[in-house]
């Protein structure tokens, strides 16, 4: 297990950390400039045709413009009104383009930064004969072996096959502290573009040019490979379908009004511009204009959390996850166990045990050993002593003896696993105190690890080592539960210890003495019940489980096999990130749902604005529906169109940032969001359209 970076600081009420690795302000001036340019380019009907809703708006705008030109030529009246309609229809398209361009521009800016680091370096390749030849990095193929020395840029993704080196990976991770890469084990993967800071390593290249991690990362942040996710496609079908229905409602209004006009004997059939205005107001332009921006921004948010998602589908799946597999060490607990209690056997005092334990731990540089020294000082004010080498002989821990200690002034102080120390004591002719086994069991039951301490044949007692559950973990798991997500702790501990920690941390289930095979089976079992499973992993033996999981997050420090098996890579290698990823996935879906609901709910008010205006001359009685008391038919239509366009631009920040997300049960979330975006969506346009109508009146525009 690699060591993990400290988790970011968390806000109590949200699951999203405040400080983000790749964050940038929402409206960065260069990004805005770029987006404005792009939104004009996106007017090209060929590209816009992919978005049925906005394509309909563009066709409507074009139609209105053509009729406007005709009217100007034949000197028809009312061209000022039609000009304004046409302009605002074009603005509607531009605003939607701008939203998408804004979302894309953020990724593109980041891709540019990455690209700058991708200079074409030279590589020292070892030819089959053993000779070293210098070739451009772009000429390297998979299976080539290269040598990298201090100061070299690693020419491609690969596996260290010989040597050990410190490597600066800040290009990829943004983290400036160097990391160690060595042959064998789980820290053998190196990434092209990173820099060797010390020593020399031999690397077997694993990817061909153009397919490296950096290339993939650039493509991902740039959104070049962006494919619509299944949910996005389904939503697109829904809004395209609604567009068709409204198209039918508006197109058939022409013959209906034909009948009405001839029957009432007054008024006239609404003009194309007015019919187009009604259509554009009704079709879900808000969500249609912002849908792709929401998706791109969601991916961007994942990247800002320093996670690379290989597909938008994975991010979406994260929102659906039912079961989170969390590794105990480093995720739920701090990486190391700590001494929390000295439990002397009968006839031994606390300070005596603490003294012996401290002496036995003086040379022990492991976190456990250090924590014993610290606890002895805290509990009994025993200071760590300098012990000269000539009077002491330290016995380091070994896997064979499973104990460590010190020989000092003839004393043979030992600490270690209880069974080993018991054996040691018996060998030295000591006896085991009667309450010892009971004490050791008590500690095991509560999830601690008993560490026995002996002074030669005399068994002194037990140091209680404990896994420390990370602060706030209990609350976070509580939040997950509220969201309907079960958390499962994976640990190599025995079931007794695992159960105790699981209980303390508040996970719903645990998998003790877990082998990679156990993990795999657990995932399959959950999936068979229809659950979606997310997990993190870094080792090669995690790879099958990462591939099996619906959301598999590989640690960047992990092996290449793990990174390829997962559908996300966490560049910070922080396994707690899984919880944030789930939150981002949910936020993405909520944003989509909220804006769709808002968009449809908005239509109610627009009908009340436009329908009476349309038939003012034919059926003046319909003015009873003009509940906003808009002052003229022209201004009513115009106000609705303007509101419809402005709401897109007003919601761009919401689309890019995502709606506020608070972990809570689905029922509460639905109630709140329905209130805000459903009921709010029905009400909001009434004052909005009314206000625009007043402004138009004041400015004598209609």
């Amino acid at each position, binding site marked *: 297990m690699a060591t993990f970076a400290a988790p970011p600081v968390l806000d109590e009420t949200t699951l999203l950390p405040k400080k983000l690795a790749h964050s940038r302000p929402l409206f960065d001036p260069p990004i805005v400039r770029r987006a404005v340019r792009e939104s004009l380019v996106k007017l090209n009907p060929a590209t816009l045709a992919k978005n049925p809703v906005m394509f309909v708006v563009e066709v409507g705008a074009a139609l209105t413009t053509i009729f406007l030109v005709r009217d100007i030529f034949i000197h028809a009246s009312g061209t000022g009104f039609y000009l304004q309609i046409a302009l605002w229809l074009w603005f509607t398209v531009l605003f939607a383009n701008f939203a998408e361009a804004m979302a894309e521009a953020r990724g593109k800016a980041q891709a540019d930064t990455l690209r700058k680091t991708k200079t074409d370096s030279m590589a020292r390749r070892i030819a089959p004969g053993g000779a070293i030849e210098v070739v451009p990095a772009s000429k390297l193929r998979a299976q080539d072996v290269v040598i990298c020395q201090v100061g070299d840029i690693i020419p491609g993704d690969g596996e260290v096959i010989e040597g050990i080196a410190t490597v600066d990976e800040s290009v990829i991770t943004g983290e400036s502290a160097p990391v160690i890469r060595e042959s064998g084990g789980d820290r053998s993967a190196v990434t092209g573009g990173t820099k060797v800071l010390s020593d020399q390593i031999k690397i077997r290249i694993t990817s061909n040019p153009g397919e490296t991690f950096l290339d993939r990362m650039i493509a991902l942040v740039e959104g070049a490979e962006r494919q619509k996710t299944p949910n996005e496609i*389904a939503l697109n079908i829904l809004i395209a379908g609604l567009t068709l229905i409204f198209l039918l409602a508006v197109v058939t209004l022409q013959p209906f009004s034909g*009948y009405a006009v001839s*029957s009432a004997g007054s008024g006239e059939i609404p003009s194309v511009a007015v019919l187009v205005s009604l259509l554009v107001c009704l079709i879900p332009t808000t969500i249609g204009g912002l849908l792709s921006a929401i998706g791109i921004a969601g991916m961007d948010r994942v990247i800002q959390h320093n996670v690379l998602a290989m597909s938008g589908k994975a991010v979406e799946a994260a929102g659906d996850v039912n079961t989170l597999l969390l590794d105990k060490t480093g995720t739920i607990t701090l990486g190391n166990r700590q001494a929390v209690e000295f439990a002397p056997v009968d006839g031994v005092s606390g300070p005596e045990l603490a003294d012996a334990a401290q002496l036995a731990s003086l040379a022990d540089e492991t976190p456990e050993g250090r924590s014993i020294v610290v606890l002895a000082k805290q509990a009994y004010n025993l200071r760590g002593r300098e012990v000269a080498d000539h009077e002491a002989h330290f016995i380091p821990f070994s896997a064979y003896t499973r104990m460590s200690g010190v020989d000092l002034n003839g004393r043979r102080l030992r600490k270690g696993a209880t069974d080993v120390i018991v054996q040691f004591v018996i060998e030295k002719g000591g006896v085991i105190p009667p309450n010892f086994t009971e004490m050791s069991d008590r500690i095991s039951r509560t999830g601690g690890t008993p560490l026995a301490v002996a002074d030669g044949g005399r068994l002194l007692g037990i140091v209680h080592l404990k896994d420390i559950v990370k602060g706030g973990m209990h609350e976070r798991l509580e939040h997950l539960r509220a969201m309907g997500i079960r958390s499962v702790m994976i640990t190599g501990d025995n079931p007794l210890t695992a159960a105790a920690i699981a209980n303390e941390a508040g996970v719903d289930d645990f998998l003790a003495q877990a082998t990679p095979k156990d993990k795999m089976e657990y995932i399959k079992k959950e999936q068979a019940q229809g659950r979606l499973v997310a997990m993190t992993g870094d080792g090669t033996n995690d790879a099958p489980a990462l591939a099996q999981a619906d959301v598999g997050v590989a640690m960047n420090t992990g092996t290449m096999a793990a990174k390829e098996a997962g559908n996300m890579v966490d560049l910070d290698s922080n396994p707690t990130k899984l919880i944030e990823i789930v939150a981002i996935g949910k*936020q993405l879906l909520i944003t989509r*749902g909220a804006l769709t609901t808002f968009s449809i709910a908005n239509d109610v008010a627009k009908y009340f604005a436009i329908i009476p205006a349309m038939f003012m001359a034919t059926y003046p*009685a319909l003015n009873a529906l003009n509940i906003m008391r808009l002052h003229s038919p022209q201004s009513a239509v115009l106000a609705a169109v303007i509101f419809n366009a402005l709401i897109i631009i007003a919601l761009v920040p919401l689309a890019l940032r995502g709606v506020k997300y608070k972990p809570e049960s689905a029922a509460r979330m639905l109630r709140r969001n329905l209130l805000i975006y459903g009921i709010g969506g029905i009400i909001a346009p009434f004052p909005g359209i009314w206000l625009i109508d007043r402004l138009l009146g004041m400015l004598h525009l209609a």
Partner: protein
Amino acid sequence: MTSIGVLNVVVYFVVILLVTKPLGVFMTKLFAGERTFLHPLLRPLEKLTYRLCRIRETSEQRWTQYTASLIAFSLMSFLFAYLIQRLQGFLPLNPMHFGTAKAPAGATAMTPDLAFNTAVSFVTNTNWQNYGGETTLSYFVQMTALTVQNFVSAAAGVAVSIALIRGFARKQANNIGNFWVDLVRATLYIFLPLSLLGALFLCSQGAIQNFRKYATVTTMEGATQTIAQGPVASQEAIKMVGTNGGGFFNTNSAHPFENPTPLSNFVQIFMIFAIPAGLTYTFGMMVADKRQGWALFAAMSVLFLAGVLVCYPAEQAGNPLLAKLGLETRATNLQSGGNMEGKEVRFGIPTSALFAVITTDASCGAVNSMHDSYTPIGGLVPLFNIQLGEVVFGGVGAGIKGMLLFAILAVFIAGLMVGRTPEYIGKKIEQKEVKMAMLALILMAANILVFTGVSSVAKFAQNGYWNSPGPATANVNNNGPHGFSEILYAYTSTNGNNGSAFAGLNGNTPWYNLSLGLATLIGRFLFIIPMLAVAGSLAAKKKLPVTSGTLPTHGALFVGLLIGTVIIVGALTYFPALSLGPIVEHFLMRQGKLFSMAFFSIWS
């Protein structure tokens, strides 16, 4: 509203509430192949039917086969019904000699286009009638062509809804049941016993059942009157319980031989909602969460009661112009008050309004009053009810199908707001479901709007086949927005397979017979086929476990959301059309303008 009127509504609703569970349990057992209390009696008959028709009871069908069976069955039914009508002159039980030279004066000829319209109409459970039964059809046709279709088209509707529910209930399954078995079971165990009981009860109230020639009597004023006869009760019961709605007589359930007493009237409206209400419980039972069924029931109930609460007061308030003239329009002990035009005195305003709302909520289409004579708002309710998609209890089977379509949409739109890809009853709602639901919605909207649009502006040539010369709108009785409502209502009713007429439209011309028939076919099959596709797609899916992160679809919140979706989708689609019909008519009436019968062309 009068207290007796309100009591009527309350008692009615309570009775429906009471039968929902027992009927639901019965149907669940029946379609699961379990024994019911009727099995000792009917099982031999069921087995015999399978043997005669070579149906293998245990084999099941994929959704495509299920659909193909339905279509094949409907096609054969259509040909059968069409031929019998066309050949009625050569067939027995024809005391009035319809279809022959000896037919009474004023009889309607059974032309090919009218026979097409009628056959389509009865095969699809629509029962739109461009003819008057007593002036057009022999008893043989009424019984073998129409009544038989009343049974089997209703049974087919139930079968399809059961298949759709199976889609939600099953997991990772290929099949959604056997159409033929479902059809036989629905006919034998549900419709046959209920119709038998219903027919006997109606006879007890005074409905007739005979094969006599029409009676000619001298009235008290000394005038001669022909009184039509026939096997009415046997057709009447299934007309209601199968939500068919095609009357034996032209005036349908307003006719004293069809619907003689207030009590028979109550039983008739009870029969309309009984099975659709029971199916909501069946849904809950089949998906193993009864709350889900009650949620649908609740949504339907709210929409139903809302309709009553708009329609009944509007009718009771009557026409403000009469009040302005100083006439008493309030209900008193001596008079009903309100708008009694086109209503039967024995039913009065409350049960007429209640009947109108129920018959259009369910795609029944039987009427006991003239919807054309309702006040604009009172008439708007039946029209809008049908436009909602016949989901308020709906026709037998059709209601639950439509409501499930809206549930899918509601879950898809709002379900995203809980941060998960949408799911309903443990099934993920994805591309396929959304595509099919939207397809059905679009086709329904297109069907109503395009046909109405064409008929509002179409003009016919002199001596043409399609219609009498001039505009198609000349076939309506009233000008102005009311005339528009009459056309809109016709296509709405046929699309919704309702079959009730606003009336006021002369539909027996080739243009209207064929276009209304086509609208009927589209409304039936292009709605059912996408929904069966949904059933197939859902059945194949895994069932997801319910967690606190799952959108709850059984609480008041979801019921509200579902109602909102139904109303908003309906309103957004049809508001422009409605605003040019009943809505503007309402405001014009308040300004003192009415649209009386006007047999002149508005274009002249």
